[in-house]
């Protein structure tokens, strides 16, 4: 048995945060600290060496190296060592590694990911390792071997898988997101259809062919089914699309409009808003096949439910019961309703995977002549502290958390038209993912 002792001291930053009252939280000071740890491990990733002299090796290696670097850089948990600091001789095998050259300045890396890639008769072989270079003689953290068809898509996929392995080891058991998908609505075919893409914007594919309007795509936790609201001849209905079958599957339709569906994180239940009953639009809860639906809210316009993915015992939603839309939370049985925003125009809640944070779109000061548009905000549910994620750049809406809880994808008009962007939860690493047509309402897969 091993006995380890540690000491940790509090961040003064968070200490000052607690001094600020809840009123201060609304004065525009970002006092909620997201991911406060600044001491990220320094990771060096030299280009993989060519394993064979096959003419395909060069182009595949370029794709692989580019993808691997971007994946690790986007992960948000590494301090990437710039390639200009690297020694001239880079290793392709563990025997070639010189720990001192990497572990000391100028690279001063703590970790080194390296390997080789070689194409041979239509197949590509990749060997990759991860070493702790500060600790010479220690066993490798990771050693992996991949063999796939020699195509750029497969090279990219191998890079994603290797990056996810590295991120999983060093990200404290949180799997990487390089293999995750983002589902969104695009107008590039003329009608609003559901599309999917890789997390980095590559490999964009159309899924539905409704010929009308699809909104609010939500992928199931096991990534087998996609629920969305589609416009039929006379009303909005919840529709279920099977990714395994590649077609729509049955989901009961009802009177009135049915919109804004949401999955529970165990995939057993679907919540949505419906105007089927008397009065306004209310939130209903059904099982994943649409059966056994029952109403949770009463009396007002209540839409956009979203489950707390950690417990599935809480639902955040948008309600217009006090005039302008505001965020509320309630227990999954409809009790204990609490209002959590107190001003402006707050919509599109998205719950972080660990259940601690809520991302939403907020026009903080709403009204004629008021400066400021819709921006993405994060709220710590327990303390109600708020931090603003986007600033002064177009209308930003529909945030969705990545499965690792480190990234957020959202829709923004900062580039002129509505496009999909992703950002780290601390506000860095902003990047545009879509460019063609109008692309809205992104939803990040659960894995």
């Amino acid at each position, binding site marked *: *048995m091993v006995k*380890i002792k*540690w000491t940790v001291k509090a961040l003064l930053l968070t200490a000052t945060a607690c001094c600020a009252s809840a009123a201060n939280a609304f004065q525009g000071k970002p006092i909620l600290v997201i991911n*406060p740890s600044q001491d990220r491990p320094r990771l060096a990733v030299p280009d993989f060496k060519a394993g064979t002299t096959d003419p395909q090796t060069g182009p595949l290696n370029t794709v692989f190296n580019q993808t691997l670097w971007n994946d690790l850089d986007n992960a948000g948990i590494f301090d990437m060592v710039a390639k200009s600091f690297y020694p001239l001789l880079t290793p392709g095998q563990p025997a070639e590694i010189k720990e001192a050259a990497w572990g000391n300045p100028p690279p001063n890396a703590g970790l080194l990911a390296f390997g080789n890639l070689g194409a041979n008769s239509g197949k590509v072989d990749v060997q990759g390792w991860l070493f*702790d270079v*500060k600790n010479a003689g220690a066993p490798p953290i990771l050693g992996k071997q991949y063999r796939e068809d020699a195509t750029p898509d497969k090279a990219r996929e191998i890079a994603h898988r290797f990056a996810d392995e590295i991120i999983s080891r060093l990200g404290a058991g949180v799997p990487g997101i390089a293999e995750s998908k983002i589902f969104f609505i695009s107008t590039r075919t003329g009608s609003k259809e559901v599309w999917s893409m890789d997390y980095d914007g590559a490999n964009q594919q159309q899924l539905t062919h409704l010929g009308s309007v699809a909104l609010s795509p939500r992928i199931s936790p096991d990534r087998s089914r996609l629920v969305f609201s589609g416009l039929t001849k006379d009303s909005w209905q919840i529709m279920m699309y099977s990714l395994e079958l590649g077609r729509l599957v049955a989901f009961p339709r009802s009177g009135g409009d049915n919109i804004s569906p949401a999955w529970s994180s165990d995939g057993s239940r679907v919540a949505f808003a419906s105007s089927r009953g008397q009065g306004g639009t209310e939130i209903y809860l059904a099982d994943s096949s649409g059966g056994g639906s029952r109403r949770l809210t009463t009396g007002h316009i209540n839409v956009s439910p979203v489950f707390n993915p950690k417990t599935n015992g809480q639902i955040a939603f948008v309600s217009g019961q006090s005039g302008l839309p505001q965020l509320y939370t309630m227990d999954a049985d409809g009790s204990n309703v609490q209002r959590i925003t107190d001003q402006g125009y707050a919509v599109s809640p998205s719950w972080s995977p660990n259940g601690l944070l809520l991302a939403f779109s907020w026009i903080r000061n709403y009204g004629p002549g008021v400066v400021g548009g819709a921006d993405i905000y994060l709220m710590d549910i327990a303390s109600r502290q708020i931090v603003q994620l986007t600033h002064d750049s177009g209308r930003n809406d529909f945030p969705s958390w990545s499965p690792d809880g480190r990234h957020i994808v959202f829709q923004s008009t900062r580039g002129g038209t509505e496009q999909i962007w992703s950002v780290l939860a601390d506000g860095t690493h902003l990047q545009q993912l879509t460019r063609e047509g109008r692309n809205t309402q992104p939803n990040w897969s659960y894995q």
Partner: protein
Amino acid sequence: MAYARANMFYERESWRKPLALSLGFHALLGLCILLVGFMLTPNGSSKWGEDQGSAITIQMVSGAPIPIPKPEVQTDNIVANPSEAVTQAPPQPKATETEDGVTIPGQVIKPKIDNVVKKANVQPHPIPTPTTAVPYGEGPPPTGPYGAFTAPNTKGGFSFQNASFAGKYGWYLDVVRRKVQQNWLGYEIDPHINAPHRAYIDFDILGDGSIANVQLVQSSGIPTLDQSAMRALQRVDTFGRLPEGNKLSVEFWFEYPPR
């Protein structure tokens, strides 16, 4: 004649002409001196000592072969000690013989106290050496970032008794430390604490990286600090699969505010 005498005594003598002559001759004389001086020195300027051609040798006076009188130096001889001129210095205590030998003069001798406990009854208290202890100077130097860490407003360190795990899997310890640190929310602690307080918490990491047996070993005395530390660990789902073994016991210190 009388007229001449009268003139001789009563006529005023004229001084002007001889005075002017005298001044003229004096001026001429001064001019001549200047002219001669200029004519004798080339270029109209004199460079003193330039034509001498040889350096001056100075010999040390003391090195002179003949005895020379010493210069008179004023010494401040004091006839008597101004402070103790009247009284004499106290006499040194004489060395006396004791049973242990001869005492040193001036030494203060403590009164001897008989040992209450007899030597035969004293139990020895040897400090047990840990089995994993490394003799001083023989262990490897602490390498890598795992021994201590510093971040903005954060300072700390940790120690471990099993060096083999840390030596092989320092990266894993780094992951654990970072994850706990991230999950520890400072705003849960009462902000009015001034002096640093420390809470000790033990827990186990199981083979699949999950966390078990979280217990407060020693309270800091601040309930909110204890609770925030416990919550920091309860928020952790997993640290990732253990690279070796199926259990790792860890002790964390949570110190607030940082010193």
